[in-house]
């Protein structure tokens, strides 16, 4: 009975995507898209990134992003120092009406984050119990040999790309990409996001030590976002190049 069920799961996973995989894929896709858009809007309110515990317009930035009109706006009164002596921290008032759509962008960001976290937890639970993660996503040790990886890189660069059947089994690079998103990038996004939350770091100040401060966490959050965008571009390109209709059909209808 159990063997028959396992065989059934095995069979279905070979011939496309299981229904729960398809459903979580599209909910996660919609959530991540919403998170990305609202995240960029939030970043546009303060397109400066820092390293350490704090950072603001009166302290040096790690780098600044030329997105929106707040980029290097420079609308500040003449700074006045708080202390006499070596500590030259200052205060200045803003004289510039900044772009700020965070009222809806922040709430939308967290709403989408709830959808992402809940869906990802269900996906991980089902994937662990059913063996989907172990069988299809975690790379086998022998698959990580330099020779096989190089072979897979060459396969990806050779045109035209072979048409995919849709669904597992996945190649070594494909496994690494999915594994990286599911087990590294998305969890890192959640944890660095929470490290920016004052109520969370009050309860778990260890987060501040892990990432080197909430501004460092914000910068890591941004780089992980950039990594996910890169993944998305390659992912969609691969879907298009390996038979778009077939791939979409398999991820929507199952086979």
């Amino acid at each position: 009975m159990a063997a028959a069920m396992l065989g059934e799961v095995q069979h279905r996973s070979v011939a496309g995507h299981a229904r729960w995989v398809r459903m979580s894929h599209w909910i996660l896709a919609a959530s991540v898209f919403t998170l990305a858009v609202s995240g960029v809007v939030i970043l546009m309110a303060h397109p400066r990134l820092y390293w350490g515990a704090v950072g603001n317009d009166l302290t040096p930035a790690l780098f600044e992003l030329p997105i929106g009109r707040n980029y290097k706006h420079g609308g500040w009164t003449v700074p006045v120092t708080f202390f006499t002596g070596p500590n030259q921290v200052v205060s200045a008032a803003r004289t510039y009406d900044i772009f700020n759509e965070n009222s809806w962008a922040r709430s939308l960001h967290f709403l989408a984050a709830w959808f992402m976290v809940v869906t990802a937890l269900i996906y991980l639970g089902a994937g662990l119990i059913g063996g989907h993660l172990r069988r299809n996503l975690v790379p086998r040790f022998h698959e990580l040999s330099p020779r096989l990886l190089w072979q897979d890189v060459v396969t990806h660069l050779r045109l035209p790309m072979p048409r995919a059947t849709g669904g597992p089994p996945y190649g070594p690079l494909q496994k690494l990409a999915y594994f990286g998103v599911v087990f590294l990038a998305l969890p890192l996004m959640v944890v660095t996001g929470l490290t920016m939350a004052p109520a969370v770091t009050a309860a778990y100040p260890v987060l501040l030590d892990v990432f080197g401060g909430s501004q460092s966490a914000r910068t890591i959050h941004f780089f992980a976002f950039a990594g996910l965008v890169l993944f998305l571009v390659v992912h969609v390109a691969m879907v298009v190049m390996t038979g778009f209709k077939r791939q979409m059909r398999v991820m929507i209808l199952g086979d």
Partner: protein
Amino acid sequence: MNKDRLISRRKLVTGFASTGGLLLAGCSSKELPPTYGNVLRMGDLLTYRAFRMLLPAQSLTREYAHGDISSSPAVGNTNPADSQQPTFNADRGPLYDRLRTGDFADWRLRVEGRVARPASFSLADLKRMPARTQITKHTCEEGWSAIAEWTGVPLRTVLEAAGILPSARFVNYYAYDDIAEGIDMLDALHPQTILAYGMNGRDLPLAHGAPLRMRVETQLGYKSVKFIERIVVTDEFDDLGKIGSLQNGWAWYVGI
């Protein structure tokens, strides 16, 4: 040993019971921020309830060393008497100007609502109360942060001086400009929630909220309202109308 276990088990049971109370119909709708049927406000409410359920209550935020104090931008309103500011109030703005000219000698903080003894305190009254100094991080919703040293009286001390009634659930505070905010009792009675009259070792500067500002260290900066005029304790949720965050599209609870 056995006794310890018994107590911890009992604590565990009461812990679960109170969690269940929060999860189910523990609060009436008047004890929660409204959603107005808006999906964004529903998400905010979910975050608020999840944080209250999952995070240990009243943990202290990290306090920093004097050398960690950073530069502090002054944003939002930097002078309630300035009629050019978008939150200028035609009645309280000129009043603030007169009080400031008199070095805030005639300034009073009113505490009213669900308290046993509605009271008003002068700056000297507040400075006579046990003070707390803390070097903490101010996190702005815009994305930046700053570390400063704040000196003031715990909000809890002021509320207890006026006598909080058992039915009290929220503490709302109004500024001299058209700004008001509110917090629940958990944040209001938090040891680091203070009414600050000092910043970085001197009197609170004008641009940072003179003579008195709120410091809510467990939430984002916009809950730390400057130029405090009045505190109102309520037993029902008050969205504070057009001068509160909710009707302007902003989340009420911003521990995130």
